[in-house]
């Protein structure tokens, strides 16, 4: 009874359930389960679900996720976001638009200890926005730089999205993290280029601040050296293969405990809050992964990816055209689905098509994460925009969107660069591997 039509029907029902507000994990899993019951029978479907749930809960590689989340919570409690922004502001604040550069740099720094766009935008926003507005920065530039900069949290390792992709697509999380380093850095540089252009054209949007002395800069650096050391150990350790991602996450969490303890921020109340947040976010992601794995079995049983792949090949678009078509599809779907749903719905379907277009799953993981990030800053979803509005309540959402538009343009350029130059993604893991 399995056929691509059944698979397509499943996808349509899934979209309907997602738009009705059903939990993403439950929607994926339920459609997958019912689909498997229809195609294979009730008993194999239930057994498969039972196997998947225990596999996920005992997956050693998945231990990476809660431990990185714990590390982020502990660093957050240790005031990491304020210190990272302060250090960047001391070095860049005297330049025109300097605090906007510092906000982007702070987001990139916070992205290295936390894998979420929303958390990065919210925490750096709480620190950077009041400072920028106090110094006379335009609302558009201030909110736009933090909303866009927040998406760096998702790309710069450790990234929650890349861990989930690695599990779903059965790819090395370490290689994905290494592959994300250059795209993360180029994304940050493009955002800085946008700020440079904006303040060249409209200098009044980002006034200069007083120059910090080298003594002040030294003090600011002294407050973050321990975090930089931990981050270098964690990301460097994974990149050179010294530790596995799970071990790196454990070392990161241990380091975060030590940093919080040295800063006298460790208390029972803080620990309970960190544990509760870590467990709640882990539970959210675990349910989604369980559902997505069941859904992906259903999709592959129906032969839908092969049929879609054949249809795309029949269009004779070539490799570049196929990837552009996929990018357009992801951006379109990303405007109605949240990032996680987009990734989990499209990975099992698009991965074979991307493979046929000559790209590797590692490249696709980075590309998909980049496309997901764009969904965070454009309406109607644009979660980062709403997060920033939560921080700067008096700034209307259309002003925030206006501010983010130049960054959104740079996002499209970056996505195009990733398609045109796959080496941006694949060179570093290949070089380190050799």
């Amino acid at each position, binding site marked *: 009874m399995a056929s691509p039509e059944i698979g397509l029907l499943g996808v349509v029902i899934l979209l309907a*359930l*997602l*738009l*009705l*507000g*059903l*939990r*993403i*994990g*439950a*929607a994926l*899993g*339920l459609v997958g*389960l019912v689909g498997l019951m229809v195609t294979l029978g009730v008993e194999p*479907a*239930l*057994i*498969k*679900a*039972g*196997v*998947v*749930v*225990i596999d996920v*809960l*005992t*997956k*050693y590689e*998945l*231990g990476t996720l*809660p*431990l990185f989340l*714990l590390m982020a919570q502990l660093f957050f409690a240790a005031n990491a976001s304020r210190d990272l922004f302060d250090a960047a502001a001391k070095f860049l604040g005297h330049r025109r638009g300097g605090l906007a550069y510092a906000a982007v740099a702070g987001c990139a720094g916070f992205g290295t200890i936390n894998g979420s766009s929303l958390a990065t935008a919210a925490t750096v926003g709480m620190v950077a926005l009041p400072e920028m507005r106090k110094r006379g920065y335009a609302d558009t530039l201030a909110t736009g730089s933090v909303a866009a900069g927040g998406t760096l949290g998702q790309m710069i390792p450790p990234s929650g999205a890349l861990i989930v992709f690695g599990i779903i697509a059965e790819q090395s999380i370490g290689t994905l993290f290494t592959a994300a380093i250059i795209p993360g850095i180029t994304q940050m540089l493009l955002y800085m280029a946008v700020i440079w252009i904006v303040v060249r054209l409209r200098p009044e949007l980002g006034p200069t601040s007083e120059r910090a002395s080298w003594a002040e800069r030294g003090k600011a650096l002294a407050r973050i050296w321990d975090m930089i050391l931990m981050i270098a150990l964690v990301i460097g350790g994974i990149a050179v293969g010294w*530790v596995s991602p*799970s*071990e790196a996450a*454990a070392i990161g*969490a*241990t380091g975060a405990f030590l940093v919080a303890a040295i800063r006298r921020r460790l208390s029972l109340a803080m620990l*309970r809050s*960190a*544990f*509760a947040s*870590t*467990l*709640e*976010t*882990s*539970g*959210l992601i*675990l*349910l*989604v992964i*369980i559902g997505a794995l069941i859904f992906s079995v259903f999709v592959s049983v129906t032969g839908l990816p092969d049929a879609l792949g054949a249809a795309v090949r029949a269009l004779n678009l070539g490799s570049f055209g196929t990837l552009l078509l996929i990018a357009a599809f992801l951006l379109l779907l990303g405007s*109605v689905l*949240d990032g*996680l*749903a987009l990734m989990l719905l499209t990975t099992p379907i698009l991965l074979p098509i991307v493979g046929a277009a000559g790209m590797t799953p590692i490249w696709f993981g980075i590309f998909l994460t980049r496309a997901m990030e764009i969904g965070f800053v454009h309406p*109607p*979803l644009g979660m980062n925009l709403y997060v920033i509005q939560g921080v700067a309540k008096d700034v209307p959402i259309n002003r925030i969107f206006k501010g983010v538009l130049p960054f959104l343009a740079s996002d499209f350029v970056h996505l195009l660069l990733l398609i045109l130059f796959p080496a941006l993604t694949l060179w570093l893991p290949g070089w380190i591997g050799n």
Partner: protein
Amino acid sequence: MSPLRSAMVWIGGAALIAATAVDTFAVIGRQIGWPLRGSIELVQAAVLVAGSIALIAATLADRHAKVQLIVDRLSPGMRHHVGRFCELMTALFLLCVLAGSAWLAIELWSSSELSEIIGVPWRWMRLFANLSLAIALVVVLRHALRGRPA
């Protein structure tokens, strides 16, 4: 936070600390020539406990990811109905997963599954995971019966 919920958070937190400590000692041990035997199996057990509790914690706090685009634009009455429908669908999914997992656990109970290196008793781990799934199911059913907007 109720005492029960607080206890759950501390147990989950203890499992996270255990996983952190085991993997950290494993790395240090490897570097100084004292490898920690069975570290992966220990982490797997700790991650199962933390993950099982995490499923309950996310359900209790209603932290599960949803797409709110259309739901936010519905009338309050409609949102209420849609919310109940979504809770029931989630309960159905959890019930199916629990049924499959419990089925396997019952089949494998008499074989006294142990991990290869240090003998982690997997049947008790499966039991813990199934109990957690059952608790999450009860939480979702309670939400459905009480009725809450999507």
